[in-house]
């Protein structure tokens, strides 16, 4: 880039089906743990849903948040608050470290406050208007997670909430990059939050035939790139990064995890849910990320894939990677362990990508036992692989044909 501005990562926060914070999530991922468990909700049996498993939080946000604060927040907002507090503290920020007019918050979600919407609809049906919570709208609105975090941090450079299905979390990070590069902010708290394990999303995804029904083996259900994959596993959680202009971070002596060197976004213009099997739009996003970061494709050692464990999507992504980068990058798909966190997926997996560069280790793709012969790239399976990385790409794609690629490099 000619601007001389660089974007670096100074803080990480997460709550996921593998752990209540970044360290426990990372350790569980490398240890080959799965976050997928049977759903014990009464509506699973009530509606005889074909899907009876989900990737569920290890630490419930209501265990971490004060009771009164939790009752005013939808679950998607609770996880955003939990992960943001971790990231803000991890970055070493306090009340005086950044002018609030130079601080932005960008947090995406795919579905928003579905649990609140459905709960309040039930209350309206059963008990009438006067029992409907006056907090219903701020709890169900998809900008709720961003708005609550923005309010807590008093961010005034902007508070935004990209909604692009399963690319939302990555799109938030891409948006943060643009705000810092354009000079609109010095510090951006960005990521994704999702918590919609409830009847309608599960029923709807089931009817679209997109979810795994391997109910008798929950931990083996999410298996990206494996010949036995039969759909994704719905997950919940949040991932948040603190991104800063490098000069600003260095001036305050911040610890730097890595650099967000470039970002690329595109749209397929192909189908509302199916990915283009030729991966044209996806490859354009990846190529754009490398171009904006001044990264030569030959320097990309690793791609942290979007691969959700669906038959069509996983293969299409590898076509796109070959097109944009080549045959050399080592791949992994963290959704084998995490399940699919929808609007939080891109953010949590971006965190995983940053840690892979920092530690020189790529986690294995859980449950990858028999590589789909249509995949001709090197996918890490069985155990983590040590590899020194000069650059790595994180892919995120969403229903609607949204494509986002983030290119990370060492600190």
């Amino acid at each position, binding site marked *: 880039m000619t601007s001389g501005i660089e974007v670096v990562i100074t803080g990480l926060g997460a709550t996921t089906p593998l752990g209540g914070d970044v360290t426990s999530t990372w350790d569980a991922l490398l240890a080959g743990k799965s976050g997928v468990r049977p759903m014990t909700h009464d509506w699973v049996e009530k509606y005889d849903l074909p899907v009876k498993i989900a990737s569920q939080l290890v630490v419930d946000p209501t265990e971490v948040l*004060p*009771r*009164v*604060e939790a009752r005013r927040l939808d679950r998607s907002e609770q996880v955003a608050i939990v992960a943001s507090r971790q990231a803000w503290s991890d970055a070493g920020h306090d009340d005086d470290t950044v002018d609030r007019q130079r601080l932005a918050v960008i947090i995406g979600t795919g579905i928003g406050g579905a649990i609140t919407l459905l709960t309040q609809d039930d209350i309206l049906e059963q008990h009438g208007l*006067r*029992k409907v919570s*006056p*907090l219903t709208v*701020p709890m169900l609105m998809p900008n709720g997670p961003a708005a609550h975090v923005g309010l807590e941090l008093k961010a005034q450079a902007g508070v935004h909430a990209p909604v692009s299905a399963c690319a939302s979390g990555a799109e938030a990070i891409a948006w943060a990059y643009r705000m810092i590069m354009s000079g609109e902010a010095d510090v951006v708290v960005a990521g994704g939050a999702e918590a919609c394990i409830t009847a309608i999303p599960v029923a709807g995804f089931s009817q679209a035939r997109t979810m795994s029904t391997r109910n008798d083996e929950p931990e083996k259900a999410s298996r990206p790139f494996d010949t036995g994959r039969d759909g994704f596993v719905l997950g919940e959680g949040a991932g948040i990064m603190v991104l800063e202009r490098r000069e600003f971070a260095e001036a305050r002596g911040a610890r730097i995890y890595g650099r967000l060197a470039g970002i690329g976004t595109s749209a397929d213009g192909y189908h509302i849910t199916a990915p283009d099997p030729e991966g044209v739009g996806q490859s354009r996003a990846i190529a754009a990320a490398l171009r904006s970061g001044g990264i030569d494709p030959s320097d990309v050692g690793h791609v942290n894939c979007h691969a959700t464990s669906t038959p069509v999507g996983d293969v299409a992504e590898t076509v796109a990677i070959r097109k944009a980068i080549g045959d050399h990058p080592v791949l992994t798909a963290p959704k084998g362990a995490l399940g699919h966190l929808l609007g939080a997926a891109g953010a949590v997996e971006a965190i995983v990508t940053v840690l892979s560069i920092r530690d020189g280790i790529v986690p294995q793709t859980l449950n990858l036992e028999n590589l789909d012969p249509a995949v001709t790239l090197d996918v890490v399976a069985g155990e983590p692989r040590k590899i020194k990385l000069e650059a790595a790409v994180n892919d995120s794609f969403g229903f609607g044909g949204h494509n986002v690629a983030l290119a990370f490099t060492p600190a």
Partner: protein
Amino acid sequence: MSENVLSGLAEIVEEVAGVAADDVTADKSFVDDLDIDSLSMVEIAVQAEDKFGVKIPDDELANLKTVGDAVNYITSNK
């Protein structure tokens, strides 16, 4: 002033807004002293209606500035 109504209202305020029941005294202003916003006031009013069997219309709710105002309203309209 009804001590029963006051203590019952204090329980509701604690449940909804997290203010310790002991701090909910007659002289306190909901907004200025107890930091309760308009959304929480609606919740408190609905719970108070159920608990004490009163109706608190919106135009009356707007006049209940202090805890004492609310206790007096509830007591005289039960």
